């Protein structure tokens, strides 16, 4: 389904297909690594579809997260995957998960990280029922928020589609402020808070890993935190703000007049299926953000992906420990483009568009 089709009827105006390409042509720039990473992701996805043929059912499907889902596939990317189970219990599910792992290994895809969040089974009930509370573990929050922000199904999408619908429905229907509140904005704050919480959790865990893993992998994690992790936080906020700024008048009216969230749920469902960079470019285009800001954001991100694609620099960063930063030229590069990215985000959220600034002030802190 094209971007235009996805958004039909749920968005105020529909940015045509491939918003990143449109943005490039509008500001007269080309971000070649972003393009290459997207093309590589599409090719890898096609390969993966073949490898995983027959493993998904209507009750349990393979879902991939991370760079492949974001269409930011670089030479050393790994595949963060889970078998999402949304159906009756079946001992076969474990066998299927093991087959997924075996087929990926046979095809020489690097295994997911050792955190245990990926590379196994995820049960829909935990995702849907445990939003907040004692039982909402770090792993559960990570899977849930990433399912919303950077995921795509392989094989049969039924389980994935159902869980995505249920999650969005829970976030919006349980949000009494959104449905009945008297404030003029219609932003799903329950969802927004979960996205903010997840981002803060990552940043805190970063320091914990720095200590626990004695600095191993620190440089690469730092670069990702400054760029790809921050991107999904920013675009998570934008997805929530899209309900106020880009949602169709019909969906807003349904919510305002009848407290019905159906239209807004449909809007969000289509919106979160875009990649983070597509969400970012959609906002840059729709809100007529300054070209300078768009260029700053995308050029910085292009530099980040270029570095990830450079195995020498990537390995260097992987081995870089915090106490070796001074004078490290590769890390100086990371610092430079990540600061540009930060500046771009500050301009986007605070300086270039009054409505976005108002929402950021209203929802961003208190």
């Amino acid at each position, binding site marked *: 389904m094209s971007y235009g089709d996805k958004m039909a009827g749920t968005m105020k105006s529909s940015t045509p297909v491939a918003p990143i390409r449109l943005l490039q042509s509008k500001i007269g720039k080309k971000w070649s690594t972003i393009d290459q990473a997207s093309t590589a992701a599409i090719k890898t996805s096609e390969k993966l579809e073949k490898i995983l043929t027959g493993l998904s059912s*209507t*009750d349990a499907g393979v879902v991939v997260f991370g760079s492949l889902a974001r269409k930011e596939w670089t030479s050393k990317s790994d595949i963060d995957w889970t078998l999402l189970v949304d*159906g*009756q219990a079946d001992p076969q599910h474990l066998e299927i998960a093991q087959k997924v792992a075996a087929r990926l290994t046979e095809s020489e895809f690097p295994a997911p990280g050792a955190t245990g969040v990926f590379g196994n089974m995820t049960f829909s009930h935990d995702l849907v029922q445990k939003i907040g509370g004692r039982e909402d573990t770090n792993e559960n929050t990570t899977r849930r928020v990433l399912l919303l922000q950077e995921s795509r199904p392989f094989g049969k999408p*039924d389980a994935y589609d*159902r869980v995505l*619908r*249920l999650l969005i*429905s829970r976030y919006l*229907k349980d949000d009494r402020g959104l*449905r009945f509140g008297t404030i003029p904005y219609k932003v799903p704050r329950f969802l927004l808070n979960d996205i903010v919480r997840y981002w803060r959790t990552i940043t805190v865990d970063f320091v914990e890993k720095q200590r626990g893993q004695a600095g191993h992998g620190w440089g690469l994690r730092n670069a990702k935190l400054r760029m790809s992790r921050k991107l999904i936080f920013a675009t998570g906020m934008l997805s929530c703000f899209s309900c106020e700024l880009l949602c169709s008048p019909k969906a807003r009216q349904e919510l305002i007049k*009848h*407290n*019905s*969230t*159906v239209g807004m*749920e*449909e809007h969000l469902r289509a919106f979160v299926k875009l990649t983070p960079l597509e969400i970012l470019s959609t906002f840059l285009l729709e809100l007529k953000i300054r070209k300078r800001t768009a260029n700053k954001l995308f050029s910085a991100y292009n530099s980040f992906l270029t570095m990830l694609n450079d195995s020498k620099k990537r390995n260097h960063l992987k081995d870089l420990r915090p106490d070796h930063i001074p004078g490290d030229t590769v890390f100086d590069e990371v610092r430079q483009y990540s600061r540009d990215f930060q500046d771009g985000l500050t301009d986007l959220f605070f300086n270039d568009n009054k409505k976005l600034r108002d929402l950021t002030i209203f929802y961003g802190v208190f």
Partner: protein
Amino acid sequence: MRLIGFSTGALAYSDFQFGLRILMNSHAKAIELSALRENEISPLVHSLSSLNLASFKYISVHAPSKYDPLRESELIVLLKQVAKRNWPIIVHPDAIQNFAAWRVFADLLFIENMDKRNLMGRTAHELSGIFQKLPEARLCFDLGHCRQVDPTMNESYLILQQFGARLGQLHVSEVNSRSTHDPLSDSSVSAFEKIASLIPENVPVILESPVPPEKVQFELKRARLALPITPSGNGNRKRETQRLQTAFV
């Protein structure tokens, strides 16, 4: 009051005569004569004139869900006997091979939305493609199927919004994760209640809950609970619709 009845298949599997007898002893005013297997349709059609259906205000026939594609035209010829009586024919969209041939039934052809196992006819989007091929056909809206596809009931809302004018009959039951029919649970009752205001009172309701004869009355009551009627006239309907739309959040 809604016309509520049962599918004979739910009560007596392939034995429509027995299903009919069970239902005649209840207060049900609607019946769906079920011939889900190919070999059931011919005996059913040939016994139509001998069946005692006088107590029913609404009668429909469920066409086979699978059949030999080479015998599609024979099946259509048989079903014309049903259409002659002006009874709706319920059909699964994935059972149709030659859509043009089925257009002969016009608005007596009711297309049923499918459960999660099927690759077509599950959502408003998928149904719209089918109705393009069968422009006069109506909708047999299976609430259990749709809830299985989307437990939030948003898809049900969207289907009713888009195809409300085509709505001719409901199928009601709980559809479990193995895609088989069960009696209505509280959870299903509560889910169906959310969209009840979008279903006009005159749309017949056919239960597909597999229940023993002694549970028929109970299941009929559960169905009434799941699909409360919206009062009409003097603005009551509008107010009630608004109230129920507020409930559907």
